[in-house]
């Protein structure tokens, strides 16, 4: 028998048992679930971790590649920049033969464009005893002097035979340490400057910043630079030699010219004396000669008695010789007259146009040489003039020649003939340097020369215009000039119509 209580108790027990078992089962199930989900979580975490690690591995590859790229890019940038800078320098070097000018190109901005802070060029003098620093960028004058002293003292110039890269951050031998101390740089390149014949010096460039490590690329750049400088210096040396011998030659030519001018002056003096002598002697000779001829003629005519045949024969000879003597004296006198401006004119009817064209033709080469344009303007129906042809030619050659002489390259000359009432007027206009007003009145005087740049270069006698004036005036014409400085000159002369 059991009572409710028992039942109840047992029910409670059973129920409790079931609940416990159920709870336990539930717990077991729950734990299993959690275990599974935890496992899943762990699995996911593992997966994530692996992905994370993979990403990190990839990051390592990326940064390594990036570093590599960075380094290459930097080296490339440096190369391009330095090549560009070197190119600029080589253009400058090839346009100068002056070593000093060459060094002046290697200035602060050049050194910094190459990517360095300081730069030095050390040169040995010819006897190798002196050392100079034509380029010292980034050093003050005291540092410069100290470096110069050290270089001489330690015989650095002779010791450096190969390009050298020195970096404070690396392990250095004794020599490099010594160099580092001299140049006071954190890192630098040093390259000998060698021409075909000899070692000329050294070039040093470098950086003060301890982080700016130089590379083999810098050394290459500097070697190119050293080569360019050597070439430039060699050119400058050759040019200087050439220039010196040229100077020497010039000096000799000047000396000779002076001597010749002196000799010429002497000759002219003698010439003048000769002219005067000839003129005087001719006059003195003509009078007695006329007498001799006159008396001989009287004798020959038999006015003073019968002349025997042998005497007549001799008198005939006297007459003949007197004639030839008179001709000779006349000729001499003519020469002296021309020289003294008293010219005999053989006037004839002339077509001035023909003469102008003939003269222009003669002078064409000089005009062509200076690329001068000549314009001739002559009216169609022009009257003939009365003149001595050779003298007229002489006038035109002189005036046109003058115009060419004073007209600059590619200038203009014009010749105009105007028909006036009784005469023809010839104007010769040039686009040359002109004549100052003070000089205008004097240019027709004998031996007068205007003081200007062209006259200083081109020799002349100072007789041309006075001769022209004599000739024109001998033709009863007039000659004058109009001019302003730098605006050209016009020479005008008149010649009577026929």
């Amino acid at each position, binding site marked *: 028998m059991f009572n409710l209580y028992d039942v109840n108790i047992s029910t409670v027990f059973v129920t409790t048992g079931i609940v416990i078992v159920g709870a336990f089962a539930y717990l077991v199930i729950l734990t299993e679930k959690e275990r599974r989900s935890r496992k899943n979580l762990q699995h996911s975490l593992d997966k994530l971790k692996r992905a994370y690690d993979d990403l990190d591995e990839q*990051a390592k590859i990326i*940064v*390594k590649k990036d*570093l590599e790229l960075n380094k290459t890019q930097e080296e490339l*940038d440096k190369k391009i920049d330095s090549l560009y800078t070197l190119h600029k320098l080589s253009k400058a070097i090839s346009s100068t033969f002056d070593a000093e000018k060459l060094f002046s190109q290697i200035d602060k901005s050049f050194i910094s464009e190459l990517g360095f802070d300081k730069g030095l060029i050390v040169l040995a003098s010819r006897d190798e005893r002196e050392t100079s620093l034509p380029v010292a960028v980034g050093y003050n004058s005291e540092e410069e002097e100290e470096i110069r002293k050290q270089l001489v003292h330690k015989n650095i110039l002779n010791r450096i035979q190969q390009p050298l890269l020195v970096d404070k951050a690396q392990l250095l031998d004794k020599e490099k340490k010594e160099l580092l101390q001299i140049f006071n740089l954190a890192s630098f390149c040093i390259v000998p400057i060698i021409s075909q014949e000899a070692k000329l010096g050294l070039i040093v460039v470098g950086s003060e*910043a301890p*982080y700016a490590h130089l590379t083999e690329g810098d050394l290459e750049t500097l070697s190119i630079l050293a080569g360019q400088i050597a070439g430039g210096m060699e050119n400058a040396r050759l040019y200087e030699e050439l220039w010196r011998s040229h100077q020497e030659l010039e000096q000799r030519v000047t000396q000779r010219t002076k001597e010749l001018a002196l000799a010429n002056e002497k000759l002219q003096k003698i010439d003048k004396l000769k002219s005067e002598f000839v003129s005087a002697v001719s006059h003195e000779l003509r009078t007695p000669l006329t007498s001799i001829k006159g008396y001989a003629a009287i004798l020959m005519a038999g006015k003073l008695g019968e002349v025997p045949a042998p005497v007549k024969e001799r008198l005939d000879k006297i007459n003949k010789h007197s004639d030839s003597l008179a001709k000779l004296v006349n000729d001499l006198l003519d020469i002296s007259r021309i020289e003294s401006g008293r010219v005999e004119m053989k006037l004839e009817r002339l077509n001035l146009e023909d003469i102008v064209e003939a003269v222009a033709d003669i002078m064409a080469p000089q005009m062509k040489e200076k690329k001068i344009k000549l314009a001739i303007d002559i009216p169609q129906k022009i009257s003939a003039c009365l003149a001595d042809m050779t003298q007229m030619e002489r006038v035109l050659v002189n005036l046109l020649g003058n115009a060419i002489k004073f007209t600059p390259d590619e200038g203009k000359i014009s010749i105009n003939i105007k028909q006036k009432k009784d005469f023809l007027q010839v104007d010769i206009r040039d686009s040359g340097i002109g004549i100052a007003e003070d000089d205008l009145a004097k240019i027709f005087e004998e031996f007068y020369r205007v003081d200007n740049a062209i006259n200083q270069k081109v020799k002349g006698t100072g007789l041309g215009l006075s001769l022209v004036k004599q000739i024109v005036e001998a033709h009863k014409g007039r000659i004058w000039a109009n001019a302003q400085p730098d605006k050209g000159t016009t020479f005008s002369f008149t010649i009577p119509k026929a």
Partner: protein
Amino acid sequence: MSIRVGVGTSENSDAFLAGREATRSACQKAQAAFLTPLIVFASVKFEQNKLLQGIKSICQGATIIGCSSAGEISTAGCTKNSVAVMGFRSDVLHVSTGLGSGLSQDARSAGQKCAQGVLRAKLPKRHVFVMFSDGLSGNITEMIKGAQEILGTSFPIVGGCAGDDYLFQKTYQYYHDKVFSDAVVGILLAGDISIGIGTRHGWNAIGKVHEVSQSHGNTIEMLDAKPALNIYQDYFGEEEAENLRSSSWAKIGTIYPLGMSIPDEEEYLIRYPIKATSSGALVCAAEVPQGSQVRLMIADKEGVLNAAKEAALKAKAALNGARISAVILFDSIARKRILGRHAIDEIKVIKKVLGTDCPIIGFYSYGEQAPLRAERYIGKAYLHNETIVVLCLGEASKKG
């Protein structure tokens, strides 16, 4: 109500003449006979006192503030072995200056003293505090904290650490007519003006996250419980990592710095290793707290230039359309190194954004200071590396 600004530079080898030339040229550009304040950045190759004397010879009595640098930036571009001077002529810009010395002994107190100095004038309408500090001698993070304790943590601070042409020996700070070292100088810009600040570097994280398991100050001893140098060995190989040990400021550390992730900030805070010790610890350019998460960083020139553009855009936007009167740049030497001969492109990019005729002065610095943008930092300034900070000064914004 106007701000006239002129910038002049000189590469004259005589310090006095260089200072004179640069200042005279700044006056000419500003069309003024006297300018104040003058901001000066110069190479250490100049005899610093003579340089300031040269500057003073043109603008007697002007407020002079600035520092030595590792390259000078001006409207014309970037130069080295030079001096750059920016001068102001304005009835709306008001400034006060401060000096804190003894950075190496107590950086925090130096920062405090400098900030206290600028507050002495009690200028209303304060906009930004600009600091120029020695970057070699003291803990700059501490110095910034010191300044913040005086000015308030969210007051805008920008600045740069002085350079010495990459010699990493001794830098100088200019305070009126005196030259200091191991000091911080600062200038507070106040008045009816507006200010825009942009800060960017352009590096991205690559690879795993690493935990700084042991560090003190700017030295990371252990990363992921291994010697810190291992990270560079892992990624680049033994040979490249060796460069960090053998030479200071090795290239690999500059191009691939470490970055600290900062929640809600767009960019990581860069910390680059200057060198590795024999035990394999990395000595960084700035503090790396123990427990922080760091990653290796990677960048390309394009990214670096783009960051400069972003910084300029950000600074410009903050001016709300006000005309830009002057731009001051704090540009990391690391950026100059990465851009190499194309460093000028960075200035060009900035000019393109801000206007080609806008007066610019700046310098290549050993560390940059600027506020972080994320909200939880409430504009609190931090020390950055490999970063460009663009500070734009404009006339008062029309919108308020």
